């Protein structure tokens, strides 16, 4: 069943389009890298810290456009040290300042909170675990809140008008829900699809919304959540757990009892690697696609500052507009692929016959 689904023409077309745009994205990225290369004089603008600052996480929320006006909203810092919990505002750590906490003195170095010893040096031994509410944490909470509000209200309108045609937000969301059900869950999971629908729908809309919000340059967007390895890693681990906890005996038999017995020493390690490689592929794919898109977009914007000329801005704007269109496609495509492959892996683990 699954083979037939993968090989059908619709999926092939989607994969083909995806591959095409990935190639395009890679080319434009390398072109930007070449243009960035010469950085001789000290007056030259270096886009790398700016791009990395955007791609990565931060203890501050940027309130205004970077480079034009520096305005950062401090966020709460939560540290788990060996002596206990520390909670304070990241505003205390602004511009490399040190902060005397309850147990240690802290300093922000390269976006990481480090413990400063009495002699002013950064401690190598004491490394507190950082559970701070960072920019990505807040944006994740905001996006999850948006998803909750949207779908709880959609559910309410289903309850209010049972059996009627969808209306408003409901009619906007219903095709997407049906898409996940009919094109992702049903063909891959078969009759047992209802059990996995909540997970697939939540993952699909979470990735889709954050991909799209990542393209938006201002609140509530302007971050890189689905291009963060921690987020994609959490999603991949959830899929790994769901796949292996819902697997039936055929799946385990396939891993631990390959058909000819003399293949045991080769096949068992291969199969065990494949168990982990599938979610790792999910994690890397989403992370790399979204991060690459953000890097390309920002690099194109940075061209204006690299050349220190307004004349280049139309070129940048045209390229960025083009990139944003591709990103919009990638946003949907990556959400689709992540959900589809999750459904496929679960389907492979629960199917009855090989």
């Amino acid at each position: 069943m699954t083979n037939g689904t993968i090989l059908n023409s619709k999926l092939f077309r989607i994969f083909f389009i995806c591959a095409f745009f990935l190639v395009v994205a890679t080319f434009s990225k390398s072109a930007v890298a070449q243009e960035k290369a010469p950085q001789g004089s000290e007056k030259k603008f270096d886009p790398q810290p700016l791009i990395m600052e955007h791609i990565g996480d931060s203890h501050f929320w940027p309130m205004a456009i970077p480079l034009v006006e520096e305005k950062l909203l401090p966020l709460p810092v939560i540290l788990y040290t060996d002596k206990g919990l520390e909670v304070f505002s990241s505003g205390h750590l602004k511009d490399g300042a040190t902060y005397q906490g309850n147990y240690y003195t802290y300093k922000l170095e390269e976006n990481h909170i480090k413990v400063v010893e009495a002699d002013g040096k950064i401690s190598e031994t004491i490394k507190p675990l950082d559970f701070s509410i960072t920019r990505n944490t807040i944006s994740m909470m905001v996006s999850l809140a948006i998803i909750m509000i949207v779908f709880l209200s959609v559910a309410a309108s289903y309850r209010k008008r049972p059996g009627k045609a969808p209306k408003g937000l409901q009619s906007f969301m219903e095709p997407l829900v049906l898409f996940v059900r009919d094109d992702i869950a049903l063909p891959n999971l078969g009759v047992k699809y209802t059990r996995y629908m909540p997970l697939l729908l939540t993952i699909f809309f979470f990735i889709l919304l954050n991909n799209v919000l990542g393209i938006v340059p201002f609140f509530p967007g302007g971050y890189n959540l689905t291009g963060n390895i921690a987020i994609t890693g959490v999603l991949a681990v959830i899929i790994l757990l769901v796949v292996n906890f819902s697997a039936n005996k055929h799946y385990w038999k396939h891993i631990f009892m390959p058909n000819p017995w003399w293949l045991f020493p080769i096949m068992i390690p291969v199969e065990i690697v494949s168990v982990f490689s599938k979610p790792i592929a999910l994690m890397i794919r989403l992370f790399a696609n979204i991060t690459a898109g953000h890097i390309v977009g920002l690099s194109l914007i940075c061209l204006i500052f690299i050349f220190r000329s307004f004349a280049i801005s139309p070129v940048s704007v045209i390229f960025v507009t083009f990139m944003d269109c591709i990103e919009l496609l990638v946003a949907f495509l990556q959400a689709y692929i992540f959900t589809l492959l999750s459904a496929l892996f679960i389907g492979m683990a629960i199917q009855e016959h090989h």
Partner: protein
Amino acid sequence: MELVTPAIGLVFWATVCFLIVLVILGKFAWKPILNAISEREKSIESALSMAEAAKEEMARLTSENDELLKQARIERDQILKEAKQMKDMIVNEAKDAAQVEGARMLERARLEIDNQKAIAMADVKNQVASLSLEIAEKILRKQFEDQKKQDALVADLLREVKLK
């Protein structure tokens, strides 16, 4: 490398928040939404099949009606034919019966007439006989009033007897 090192804090918060949202949405959003959609699909499906069935039933009824009408027409024709036949038969029977009855009555009348005639003839014969006897008596009485004539006759008769 910084970019591919997951931050423990984000992993923690992402896991917690995602699972909470998954549970809440699973219970209060996805289940009602999917149930409502599949229920609506089922109702649409059943409505369509019901419409199809109604259409078929309608067609069946129409053809049945036509059939019935045709049958009724045939039956009516047959009844009419039978009625006509019956009428003809009854008329013919009545005619026959009338003829037979008429013939019988005529026969009876003729017999009666014959009888009456015979009775009347017998009566007339009797009357003629008695009248003739009376007349003969009267004539004889008149003729044999005087003795001489009687004697003459007797003598005459006797003469005839002698000749024999």
